[in-house]
């Protein structure tokens, strides 16, 4: 709780009970009063509003973004609230506006961070005939160790050794449809694995 003389700004919490409480006129008017005073140039009240808003926004972004990005998002929203503070009309509730700005900042962040280029694995990748293969083939072999044996075997036979589905079926003892399914599932897992590793880096 942040006390500023008669004002007592309670941060909004996520539980249903507190969400109900936050809709009470008393609580809303505290936030609004501090912000409106800030619009009129009262720096003391404005700081109290910003601190309360910062705490609210930290909770808002806590489960929506990694900590470093969440901190950036909180700052972005605080700056947006500040630069656009003239646009707020005290006759209307403040929190829908604050939350809308936070929501759209989060959407912008999602768009930015999830713009990932997907590159198809080409059929010659891992082919021992190509000059750069020793390292690449070794890397693929390491990746295949993360897959179940039958999926790794299907990929190794068809995608690395260049066998047909029928030949791979005869060699591995899996049915042709099972070879196809195992290749599909294995490549999907490999792709997810590579993506997760990249994210971790």
């Amino acid at each position, binding site marked *: 709780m942040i006390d500023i003389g008669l004002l007592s700004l309670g941060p909004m919490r996520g539980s249903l009970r507190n969400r109900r409480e936050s809709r009470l006129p008393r609580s809303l008017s505290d936030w609004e009063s501090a912000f409106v005073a800030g619009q009129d140039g009262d720096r003391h009240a404005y700081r109290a509003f910003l601190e309360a808003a*910062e705490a609210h926004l930290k909770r808002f972004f806590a489960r929506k973004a990694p900590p470093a990005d969440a901190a950036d998002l909180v700052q972005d929203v605080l700056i947006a609230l500040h630069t656009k503070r003239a646009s707020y009309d005290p006759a209307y509730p403040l929190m829908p506006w604050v939350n809308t700005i936070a929501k759209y900042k989060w959407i912008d962040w999602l768009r930015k961070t999830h713009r990932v280029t997907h590159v198809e694995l080409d059929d010659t990748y891992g082919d021992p005939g190509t000059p750069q293969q020793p390292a690449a083939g070794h890397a693929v072999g390491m990746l295949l160790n993360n897959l179940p044996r039958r999926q790794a075997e299907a990929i190794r036979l068809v995608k690395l050794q260049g066998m047909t589905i029928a030949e791979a079926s005869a060699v591995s003892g899996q049915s042709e449809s099972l070879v196809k399914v195992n290749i599909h599932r294995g490549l999907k897992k490999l792709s997810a694995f590579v993506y997760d590793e990249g994210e971790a880096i």
Partner: protein
Amino acid sequence: MSNDLLDKLVADAAPVRRANAVLFAALFSGGIAIAAASILIFYGLRDLPATTFGVSVMIWKAFASVAVAATGAVLVYRLGKPGRGVRGGTDKVFALIALLFAAPLVIAFFAGPESHKEWLFNGAWVLDCMRGIGMATVPVWTASVIWMRKAAPTDIAQASWAVGLASAASGTSAFVLYCPFDSVLYVGLWYMATILGIACVSRFILPGVIRW
């Protein structure tokens, strides 16, 4: 982390002038004035219709356009304010368009003389009308966008529809000053299509323009 930022924001907290209804009225009416002036400059003022029926149609199309524009303008103002008090606001504007443009169109199509149906697809004039309405829409749309950027909208989708509908209907109202066609079929179909088309364009453009 944020303490430095908070210090800077607090230090910069000079008193501000709030966006209010006077600002909106000035922007929107300014946009309409530019729209009307551009129609008069580039197209000219139409003559009064020679028949009573022509006068009736002219009054109807002016009333319908202004009614949709006024309803849309109120909605644009309200959607620039935070909160959820305008749920279904754009539905009412769409309903008004159906009542004032679509209903007369349908009645005229089925109850009117067969010979009038040739007015429906008058290609060259249709493009001319759409161009004129589009030109008159631009200043009102720009004024509405400036309002939205200065205001505090929370429902961007509704705001985008409302801005498109209000500005297109305002542009149409300005175009009535020139439009020489006094056919219920022609006006009902092409005015409505242009207003709805512009509203769709606004729906897709505006969210990218409103940024905090």
